[in-house]
């Protein structure tokens, strides 16, 4: 496994204050993220995995601790700097796709492509996710799996260093879920992006290079998987 360090989370924690209630969503945690790895973050709901993903993706700042990405301290970055970070380094894939309903598959991808200077060719990315024939369809005319493919294409087109996936198969049936995982692995293999998948589905951990188990808002263990399974051999 390539050991080129991409991001370091050093003792980060996150506490949300909601009125008079303080929720410690993530207790002090540290994690190194390497270039080109598939990292699966596993845990039941409420375990802090999405909070961790949001911190990695620059969607939120930690309450304490430091996040260092390519010598930049994201924990102290301004809103503008975080936006630039998301724009150029991050691709997000959500459980519920979050596509723009008024744009076709191709236009959804093109919208993201317009954000960066050197995007990948939109059509090419669409054909990589197997949607070249469906490119003129609107999200409402696509199946869940197809919408998730558009969402992955939208993330990929910016050629991000980090592809962050929050329960990417959560809303999909088994077969479709497997094909999405294959697509994610293929993305890592062809483009060299780091893929981080957050899921409560333990079976998915089998495809990871490393597995982060979370429990009650903290990292319980980090397991290095010496022989990751190809997604098509995973079952749940």
């Amino acid at each position: 496994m390539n050991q080129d360090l991409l991001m370091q989370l050093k003792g980060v924690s996150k506490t949300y204050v909601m009125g008079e209630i303080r929720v410690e969503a993530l207790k002090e945690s540290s994690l190194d993220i390497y270039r080109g790895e598939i990292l699966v973050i596993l845990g039941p709901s409420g375990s802090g995995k999405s909070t961790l993903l949001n911190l990695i993706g620059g969607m939120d700042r930690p309450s304490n601790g430091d996040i260092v990405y390519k010598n930049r301290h994201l924990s102290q970055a301004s809103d503008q700097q975080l936006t630039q970070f998301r724009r150029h380094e991050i691709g997000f894939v959500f459980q519920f796709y979050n596509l723009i309903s008024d744009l076709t598959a191709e236009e959804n991808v093109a919208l993201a492509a317009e954000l960066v200077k050197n995007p990948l060719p939109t059509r090419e990315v669409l054909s990589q996710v197997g949607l070249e024939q469906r490119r003129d369809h609107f999200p409402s005319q696509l199946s869940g799996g197809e919408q998730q493919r558009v969402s992955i294409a939208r993330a990929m087109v910016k050629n991000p260093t980090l592809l962050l996936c929050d329960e990417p198969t959560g809303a999909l049936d088994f077969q479709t879920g497997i094909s999405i995982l294959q697509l994610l692995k293929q993305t890592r293999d062809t483009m060299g992006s780091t893929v981080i998948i957050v899921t409560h589905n333990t079976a998915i951990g089998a495809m990871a290079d490393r597995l982060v188990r979370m429990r009650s808002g903290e990292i319980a263990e980090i397991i290095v998987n010496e022989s990751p399974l190809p997604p098509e051999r995973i079952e749940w």
Partner: protein
Amino acid sequence: MKVLNRRLLHIIKGSRSQFLGLAVIIAVGISLYIGITTAFFNLSQSQQYFYQENNFADYYFYVVRAPESIIKQVERVPGVSLASGRIQKDVPVWKKDQERATLRLTSYDLPLDKQVNGIELIQGRFFSPYPAGGGIEAMVNPAYFEANGLTFGDTVDIIAENRKYPVKIVGTAAGPEFTYIMKDAANLLPDHETFGIMMLPLNQAQHLFNLPGQFNQLLVQFAPGVDQDRAVQSIKEILTPYGNLASFPRQDQLSHAALEGELEGLEAISLFLPLIFLSIAAAIQFIILRRMIKTQRSQIGIMKALGFDNAQIIFHFSSYAILICTGGALLGIGSGVLMASYFSDLYAMFFNLPRAIGGVNYQVILYSIILSLGLGALAGFSASRPILKISPAESMRPQPPSSSIRSLVEKCNWLWSRLSSSWKMAFRTISRNRFRMLVSILGISSAVALLILSMFTNDAVDYLMDQHFNRESNYDYMLSFNQPIKESELLNISRLEGVELIEGYFTLPIRVYQGGRSEEDVLVGIHPSSTLKHPTREDGTFIPIPQEGMLISRRSAERLGLKVGDTVELETLLGLGPNRYAQLKIVSINYQLFGNESYVSLAQANRIIHESQLITGALIKVDPGRAAGIEKALSDMTGINSIVSRQKERDNILSMMDSMIYMVGVMIIFSVILGFVIVYNSAIMGFNERKRELASLLTLGFTRQEVAGIMWKETIPQALPALVLGLPAGKVLAELYFSSMQFDMWYMPVVIYPLSYALAALGGLVFVLLGQWAASRGIKKLDIIELSKNID
């Protein structure tokens, strides 16, 4: 139902800014409705009451002099229900401050109950025909009394038949023909300091003018439903031997025409203006409710599953609109009553009606409640119709994809392929919400059009003033003499120090005949070389005075269907010497803004009356530094009937216009509020339904400003054409408004200066910016963390 009510409160709380905005629009509509309708209703009622109480004349006949015995003969004409003879003449007044004024002496024979055009005592007491200590007693109109600082018991010196008479003022009175007091149609507004009505006993007037047992005006009331034309013809025949000078129906009576014009204007806007606000508010409520029902489909399904019936749920949603309208109506009634009282004060200033024209009109308030609740119910129930079709089981499943979300712009491939994705998004969103777009465009254009409507009266009056004071008339003073004089006699005046130019004119009342019809007019003879007065074409350019032929007034040309090149027959109605006849060719039509006068050369006017070099008045241009001295010298001259100072006329109009400025300001504020609410609602609806999508753009790396930019892209394609459309729409609205109140006494062109268009567009831009800004504030609060959570 209690739970549903609580739910409704939550919905209102969640959309409180939209709720409030719409309630304000309804309030504006309702207050305009109450304000204008109450004013119309009250004004029109006090007019009718006043007319009825005082036997307001249906027809006026002016003669040189006729014996009172004729009246009995006129009363026997079939159709005539009442006839009165009286003396009415304008006399000069020597005021204490040495200034000149004109009083229109009007006689009354006591008791008044059988008199056509009676009067009512306002203050003081009635005149006595034979005062104990001798002399003459009279009453004046309250405005003249006040403007000249008179007190009861004061004497006013008038000149009648070249003799000065002191007249004791004992009271003030009002009459139906004096509701709007102007000397003639050449004035736009009353000037109470220099013109008033003096009411005195018939016997005294007959004595003053040396007309014992005679009258010079006959007023007639007809029985309802009679053939007036035939009766008028018979009366004219009776009066012919007595020098029938002029005759005209009630509609041509100046005061009545002014009041009717105002009433027509009020009536025209009383429903139309509020309806703009109310219908836009209703359309937006409809859109909001439809949207709400669509997004809350599954919740409606749950309600149905729980056992709520259709009627309960429909009423629940419709109540949203009904509550907006109720809130709006409550706000609107308060401000409407205030507005009505403002209007009443304004009308009390313009129209002299003794019966109170203020007061709350409960009927109008009741109508306004019915109007607003009806509109709310209509918007609510019609928007709630889809609730009927929602089945509990189906509502839980996701909605089928909307069929066509392709935009019209997509048809133009060339353009579409060049648009960025965010523009494509904007166009698709717009075309998916076509009704909302239509309401936005119509609404924004209406608001811009209303801005123009609010501002254009200023332009029209400014144009009118400029045209009248700076172009058509260049004189500083207009004198009229007690009787015609030779032009050479003007030397006395031209020798006064500071008089730069003096031009004589001859005013000749005439009757114009054309194809069996006739029309009374005023023919003015001026020198073809005159620089102090200019007849004008429709486009405002000057028409040279021809040596031969006439420039006919717009009104006569329109009424008699005359055109350039026609030859008409004229009859003079001077009242001095025999009536003369002449045939003149129409050289051009005079569109002068004030006065409706026809023009000939001074020589031609003299030829018509078989005279030479006679004038009835003079126009003077003076050195401004010496104006006061000249005015004083002129005031001291006998033989001058009246002196009109152009500067005073102008000041008077300007001060009257000042009172209109508040209304203009209020209308501008109303228009901006309307525009703001439309833009805000449209943008906030777009924002609310796409919060999730917009937040997902933030995760992609869009900045919040870029997201705000995307919202702008949705507003611009609607706002821009609407702003542009609003400008010509404003002109059309202004034209409709003027044509609704166009009386042919005055020619009021619809003039809108480019500055007003620019200001209206700027105002539109301001409300678009404000509305959009208010709606995009939510972008700051967009939470991208929420995205990872479940939908709904």
